[in-house]
Protein backbone atom coordinates (compact mmCIF):
# COMPACT_ATOMS: atom_id res chain seq x y z
CA UNK A 1 0.00 0.00 0.00
CA UNK A 2 1.37 3.40 -0.97
CA UNK A 3 2.05 5.90 1.78
CA UNK A 4 -0.56 8.65 1.79
CA UNK A 5 0.22 12.32 2.25
CA UNK A 6 -1.91 13.59 5.12
CA UNK A 7 -2.02 17.16 3.89
CA UNK A 8 -3.12 16.11 0.41
CA UNK A 9 -5.87 13.93 1.81
CA UNK A 10 -7.03 16.73 4.09
CA UNK A 11 -7.14 19.17 1.19
CA UNK A 12 -9.13 16.71 -0.91
CA UNK A 13 -11.60 16.21 1.91
CA UNK A 14 -12.00 19.94 2.49
CA UNK A 15 -12.73 20.42 -1.20
CA UNK A 16 -15.32 17.66 -1.06
CA UNK A 17 -16.87 19.21 2.04
CA UNK A 18 -17.01 22.61 0.34
CA UNK A 19 -18.80 21.18 -2.69
CA UNK A 20 -21.22 19.38 -0.36
CA UNK A 21 -21.83 22.64 1.51
CA UNK A 22 -22.73 24.40 -1.74
CA UNK A 23 -25.09 21.55 -2.60
CA UNK A 24 -26.78 21.84 0.82
CA UNK A 25 -26.99 25.61 0.39
CA UNK A 26 -28.74 25.12 -2.96
CA UNK A 27 -31.20 22.68 -1.42
CA UNK A 28 -32.05 24.98 1.49
CA UNK A 29 -32.38 28.05 -0.73
CA UNK A 30 -34.67 26.14 -3.12
CA UNK A 31 -36.75 24.46 -0.41
CA UNK A 32 -39.86 26.23 -1.73
CA UNK A 33 -39.10 26.10 -5.44
CA UNK A 34 -41.61 23.96 -7.33
CA UNK A 35 -40.08 21.10 -9.29
CA UNK A 36 -36.66 21.36 -7.63
CA UNK A 37 -34.91 18.05 -6.86
CA UNK A 38 -32.58 17.92 -3.87
CA UNK A 39 -28.95 17.20 -4.78
CA UNK A 40 -25.99 15.66 -2.94
CA UNK A 41 -22.36 14.84 -3.66
CA UNK A 42 -21.09 11.32 -4.19
CA UNK A 43 -19.69 9.80 -0.96
CA UNK A 44 -16.09 10.61 -0.12
CA UNK A 45 -15.11 6.92 -0.04
CA UNK A 46 -16.13 6.64 -3.69
CA UNK A 47 -13.94 9.62 -4.53
CA UNK A 48 -10.97 8.01 -2.79
CA UNK A 49 -11.51 4.72 -4.56
CA UNK A 50 -11.73 6.46 -7.89
CA UNK A 51 -8.55 8.49 -7.72
CA UNK A 52 -5.33 7.70 -5.93
CA UNK A 53 -4.60 10.36 -3.35
CA UNK A 54 -2.34 12.85 -5.01
CA UNK A 55 -2.33 16.54 -5.65
CA UNK A 56 -4.77 17.62 -8.34
CA UNK A 57 -3.38 21.07 -8.95
CA UNK A 58 0.03 19.94 -10.10
CA UNK A 59 1.47 22.93 -11.92
CA UNK A 60 2.79 25.75 -9.83
CA UNK A 61 0.78 28.86 -10.47
CA UNK A 62 -2.19 26.92 -11.73
CA UNK A 63 -4.99 27.76 -9.38
CA UNK A 64 -8.70 28.04 -9.49
CA UNK A 65 -11.65 25.81 -8.70
CA UNK A 66 -10.78 23.23 -11.35
CA UNK A 67 -10.40 20.49 -8.76
CA UNK A 68 -13.99 20.77 -7.61
CA UNK A 69 -15.20 19.58 -10.96
CA UNK A 70 -13.89 16.19 -9.98
CA UNK A 71 -16.78 15.66 -7.55
CA UNK A 72 -20.10 14.71 -9.11
CA UNK A 73 -23.17 16.36 -7.66
CA UNK A 74 -26.23 14.41 -8.60
CA UNK A 75 -29.94 14.61 -7.72
CA UNK A 76 -30.89 12.58 -4.70
CA UNK A 77 -33.51 9.87 -4.92
CA UNK A 78 -36.59 11.11 -3.12
CA UNK A 79 -37.32 9.06 -0.02
CA UNK A 80 -40.90 8.92 1.13
CA UNK A 81 -43.90 10.66 -0.43
CA UNK A 82 -43.31 13.42 -2.94
CA UNK A 83 -45.08 16.76 -2.56
CA UNK A 84 -47.51 17.87 -5.25
CA UNK A 85 -45.08 20.65 -6.08
CA UNK A 86 -42.48 17.97 -6.93
CA UNK A 87 -40.03 19.60 -4.52
CA UNK A 88 -37.98 16.91 -2.77
CA UNK A 89 -36.07 18.99 -0.23
CA UNK A 90 -36.41 17.82 3.38
CA UNK A 91 -35.22 20.69 5.54
CA UNK A 92 -34.32 18.52 8.53
CA UNK A 93 -32.01 16.33 6.45
CA UNK A 94 -30.33 19.37 4.97
CA UNK A 95 -29.71 20.89 8.39
CA UNK A 96 -28.33 17.56 9.59
CA UNK A 97 -25.99 17.43 6.61
CA UNK A 98 -24.86 20.96 7.38
CA UNK A 99 -24.01 19.88 10.92
CA UNK A 100 -22.00 16.92 9.65
CA UNK A 101 -20.13 19.16 7.24
CA UNK A 102 -19.23 21.57 9.98
CA UNK A 103 -17.95 18.84 12.30
CA UNK A 104 -15.87 17.21 9.59
CA UNK A 105 -14.47 20.56 8.50
CA UNK A 106 -13.48 21.54 12.02
CA UNK A 107 -11.76 18.19 12.48
CA UNK A 108 -10.04 18.59 9.15
CA UNK A 109 -8.59 22.01 9.91
CA UNK A 110 -7.66 20.97 13.44
CA UNK A 111 -5.73 17.96 12.19
CA UNK A 112 -3.93 19.98 9.54
CA UNK A 113 -3.03 22.68 12.03
CA UNK A 114 -1.78 20.15 14.56
CA UNK A 115 0.45 18.33 12.12
CA UNK A 116 1.74 21.54 10.64
CA UNK A 117 2.70 22.77 14.11
CA UNK A 118 4.32 19.44 14.91
CA UNK A 119 6.32 19.61 11.71
CA UNK A 120 7.52 23.12 12.45
CA UNK A 121 8.45 22.28 16.02
CA UNK A 122 10.39 19.22 14.94
CA UNK A 123 12.29 21.09 12.30
CA UNK A 124 13.11 24.09 14.40
CA UNK A 125 14.56 22.33 17.42
Amino acid at each position, binding site marked *: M*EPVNLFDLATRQSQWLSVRQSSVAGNIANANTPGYTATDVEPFEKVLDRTAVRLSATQSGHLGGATEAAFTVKPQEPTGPVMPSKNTVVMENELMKAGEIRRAFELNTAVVKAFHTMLMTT*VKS
Partner: protein
Amino acid sequence: MIGGIGAVHLKSANSGSETSTDLLTGTGAAPTGTQVASTFAEALNQAATKTVNTLQHAEQASIQALKGDVDTRQVVDAVMGAQQALQTTIAIRDKIVSAYLEVSRMSI
Protein backbone atom coordinates in the same frame (compact mmCIF):
# COMPACT_ATOMS: atom_id res chain seq x y z
CA MET B 1 3.79 9.40 6.44
CA ILE B 2 3.53 13.14 6.48
CA GLY B 3 5.43 15.15 3.95
CA GLY B 4 8.63 13.11 4.27
CA ILE B 5 10.95 15.44 6.13
CA GLY B 6 14.60 14.53 5.99
CA ALA B 7 14.14 11.79 3.42
CA VAL B 8 16.74 12.72 0.86
CA HIS B 9 16.40 10.46 -2.10
CA LEU B 10 19.34 9.56 -4.18
CA LYS B 11 17.25 7.44 -6.45
CA SER B 12 14.29 8.28 -8.63
CA ALA B 13 11.17 8.91 -6.60
CA ASN B 14 8.67 8.28 -9.35
CA SER B 15 6.16 6.33 -7.34
CA GLY B 16 2.42 6.56 -7.84
CA SER B 17 2.02 9.11 -5.09
CA GLU B 18 4.39 11.86 -6.08
CA THR B 19 4.45 13.85 -2.93
CA SER B 20 4.64 11.44 -0.08
CA THR B 21 8.29 10.51 -0.14
CA ASP B 22 9.99 13.57 -1.55
CA LEU B 23 12.01 16.01 0.41
CA LEU B 24 10.44 19.27 1.32
CA THR B 25 7.29 18.89 -0.69
CA GLY B 26 4.76 19.02 2.16
CA THR B 27 1.80 20.51 0.41
CA GLY B 28 3.75 22.30 -2.25
CA ALA B 29 3.69 21.72 -6.00
CA ALA B 30 4.24 18.14 -7.00
CA PRO B 31 7.48 17.50 -8.87
CA THR B 32 6.97 16.89 -12.52
CA GLY B 33 9.60 14.17 -12.65
CA THR B 34 12.52 13.50 -10.42
CA GLN B 35 15.94 12.83 -11.82
CA VAL B 36 18.34 10.44 -10.20
CA ALA B 37 20.73 12.42 -7.99
CA SER B 38 24.11 10.80 -8.20
CA THR B 39 25.90 12.83 -5.56
CA PHE B 40 24.93 14.36 -2.27
CA ALA B 41 25.56 17.79 -3.68
CA GLU B 42 23.12 17.19 -6.50
CA ALA B 43 20.51 15.96 -4.05
CA LEU B 44 20.92 19.12 -1.99
CA ASN B 45 20.68 21.18 -5.14
CA GLN B 46 17.42 19.51 -6.09
CA ALA B 47 16.04 20.03 -2.61
CA ALA B 48 16.96 23.71 -2.70
CA THR B 49 15.36 24.17 -6.10
CA LYS B 50 12.23 22.47 -4.90
CA THR B 51 12.08 24.82 -1.93
CA VAL B 52 12.43 27.85 -4.15
CA ASN B 53 9.67 26.54 -6.42
CA THR B 54 7.42 25.95 -3.43
CA LEU B 55 8.02 29.48 -2.21
CA GLN B 56 7.32 30.92 -5.64
CA HIS B 57 4.14 28.88 -5.91
CA ALA B 58 3.01 30.25 -2.57
CA GLU B 59 3.80 33.79 -3.65
CA GLN B 60 1.87 33.45 -6.90
CA ALA B 61 -1.06 31.92 -5.03
CA SER B 62 -1.11 34.82 -2.57
CA ILE B 63 -0.89 37.40 -5.36
CA GLN B 64 -3.81 35.79 -7.17
CA ALA B 65 -5.75 35.68 -3.93
CA LEU B 66 -5.16 39.37 -3.33
CA LYS B 67 -6.07 40.27 -6.90
CA GLY B 68 -9.25 38.34 -7.12
CA ASP B 69 -11.15 35.17 -6.65
CA VAL B 70 -9.19 32.03 -5.89
CA ASP B 71 -9.87 28.87 -3.92
CA THR B 72 -9.04 29.74 -0.31
CA ARG B 73 -7.83 26.29 0.65
CA GLN B 74 -5.31 26.19 -2.17
CA VAL B 75 -3.75 29.47 -1.10
CA VAL B 76 -3.60 28.28 2.51
CA ASP B 77 -2.02 24.99 1.45
CA ALA B 78 0.55 26.75 -0.71
CA VAL B 79 1.52 29.12 2.09
CA MET B 80 1.75 26.38 4.70
CA GLY B 81 3.79 24.24 2.35
CA ALA B 82 6.13 27.16 1.82
CA GLN B 83 6.49 27.62 5.57
CA GLN B 84 7.33 23.94 5.99
CA ALA B 85 9.74 23.94 3.10
CA LEU B 86 11.50 27.08 4.27
CA GLN B 87 11.90 25.88 7.84
CA THR B 88 13.23 22.55 6.69
CA THR B 89 15.72 24.17 4.35
CA ILE B 90 16.90 26.51 7.08
CA ALA B 91 17.37 23.60 9.46
CA ILE B 92 19.35 21.66 6.90
CA ARG B 93 21.45 24.72 6.10
CA ASP B 94 22.22 25.23 9.78
CA LYS B 95 23.26 21.62 10.19
CA ILE B 96 25.52 21.80 7.15
CA VAL B 97 27.11 25.04 8.35
CA SER B 98 27.73 23.71 11.84
CA ALA B 99 29.10 20.47 10.40
CA TYR B 100 31.48 22.46 8.21
CA LEU B 101 32.60 24.56 11.15
CA GLU B 102 33.22 21.47 13.19
CA VAL B 103 35.27 19.90 10.48
CA SER B 104 37.27 23.10 10.03
CA ARG B 105 38.02 23.11 13.76
CA MET B 106 39.48 19.61 13.69
CA SER B 107 43.17 19.57 14.42
CA ILE B 108 45.33 17.94 11.82
